[in-house]
């Protein structure tokens, strides 16, 4: 058995680790709630924007520079991971899905001149890209905590500009979808060329399936409202121009949501990881405390035996 001194030092260390992980757990929980709230605040805007697009494209299908489908020679992956570690399996899951997607996609495309690039959100993505030998076009750091629409704008602008200029022909986003506080999935969404269905799906996914922020009734109401109205609108300057300026907004909105959800998922994953870490620390500290008491008791017993044996030797 270890000496009491040794056990005491270990016990102290375990207890301070416990304190740190507990603190991190609480911080992550608060941040997760905040990220969810932010996502929810933008919901009315998202629904209204989608409705507007329905009204615009309901009359006739419109082809713009952002909806055009080209033969794919260059695919950009927007991979959303975290800046920092200690998030449990959060990053690994994203990267595993990305690898699976690449493996499948290479077979489908079957084109030797086709190549992939990565737009990285989060420092960990850069590491993944280096490991897979995929060039990183641009990286965005520090979008981990409270993301604002202004922060997302450069990301969207970059992606859309490259697509319009013909630098790449397809943009695929790989990010974590926040289903509930305990369950997150990695989803692969096609961002460009713009697809109405994909945007609609993202908007509908804004509400988590369970928990404080679920509001099924409202979503339903909005769902019915879309597309039932046909009105005689006056378009200024013209339908095509309006759609042209609306689409970048929709993409920004979509990516904003992707990142918000990834944020909420990251914090939630970190919370779970920290919770199990503090649980482990609790258990460890418990066994160490018992060991310490045992060691202390055996030391005392030994001393008493020594005293009594000396005494009996003297008499």
């Amino acid at each position, binding site marked *: 058995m270890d000496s009491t001194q040794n056990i005491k030092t270990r016990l102290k260390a375990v207890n301070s680790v416990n304190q740190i992980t507990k603190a991190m757990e609480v911080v992550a929980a608060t941040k997760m709630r905040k990220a969810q709230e*932010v996502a929810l*605040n*933008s919901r*009315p*805007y998202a629904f*209204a*924007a989608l409705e*507007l697009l329905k*009204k*615009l494209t309901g009359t006739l299908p419109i082809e713009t520079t952002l909806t055009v489908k080209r033969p794919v020679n260059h695919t950009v992956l927007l991979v959303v991971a975290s800046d920092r570690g200690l998030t449990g399996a959060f990053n690994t899951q994203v990267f595993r899905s990305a690898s699976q997607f690449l493996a499948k996609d290479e077979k489908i495309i079957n084109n030797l001149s086709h190549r992939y690039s990565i737009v990285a959100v989060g420092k960990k993505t850069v590491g993944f890209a280096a490991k897979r030998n995929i060039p990183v076009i641009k990286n965005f750091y520090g979008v981990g905590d409270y993301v*604002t*629409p202004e922060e997302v704008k450069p990301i969207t602008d970059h992606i859309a500009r490259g697509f319009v200029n013909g630098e790449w022909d397809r943009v695929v986003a790989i990010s974590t979808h926040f289903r509930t506080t305990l369950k997150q999935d990695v989803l692969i969404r096609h961002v460009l060329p713009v697809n109405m269905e994909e945007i609609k799906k993202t908007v509908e996914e804004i509400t988590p399936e369970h928990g404080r922020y679920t509001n099924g009734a409202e979503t339903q109401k909005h769902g019915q409202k879309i597309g039932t*109205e046909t*009105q*005689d*609108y*006056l*378009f*200024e*300057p013209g339908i095509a*121009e*309006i759609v042209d*300026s*609306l689409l970048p*907004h929709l993409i920004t*909105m979509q990516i*904003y949501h992707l990142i918000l959800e990834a944020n909420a998922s990251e914090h939630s994953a970190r919370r779970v990881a920290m919770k199990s870490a503090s649980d482990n620390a609790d258990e460890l500290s418990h066994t160490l405390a018992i060991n310490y008491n045992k060691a202390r008791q055996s030391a005392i017993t030994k001393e008493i035996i020594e005293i009594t044996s000396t005494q009996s030797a003297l008499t």
Partner: protein
Amino acid sequence: MKINALTLKGIAFKGEAESLNVKTLSGEITVLDHHRPLISVLTKGEITITTPDRKKTSIHARSGFLEIGNTNEVTLLID
């Protein structure tokens, strides 16, 4: 008329208004009650909403969209 001004951060204004002044791509316009249905693109500038009690609310917009429905409802999407 009813105005619903939405941004990505939340609802900027919601309620009754007497008039609405916005800058659109084809010039600055003022929207009063029972405007005909219109969809337009906003440009950079201030959006001024005058409520029935003559109070003015001002919102800054970098870009956005204006939609006037035929039920005297106005939706603003502001960035």
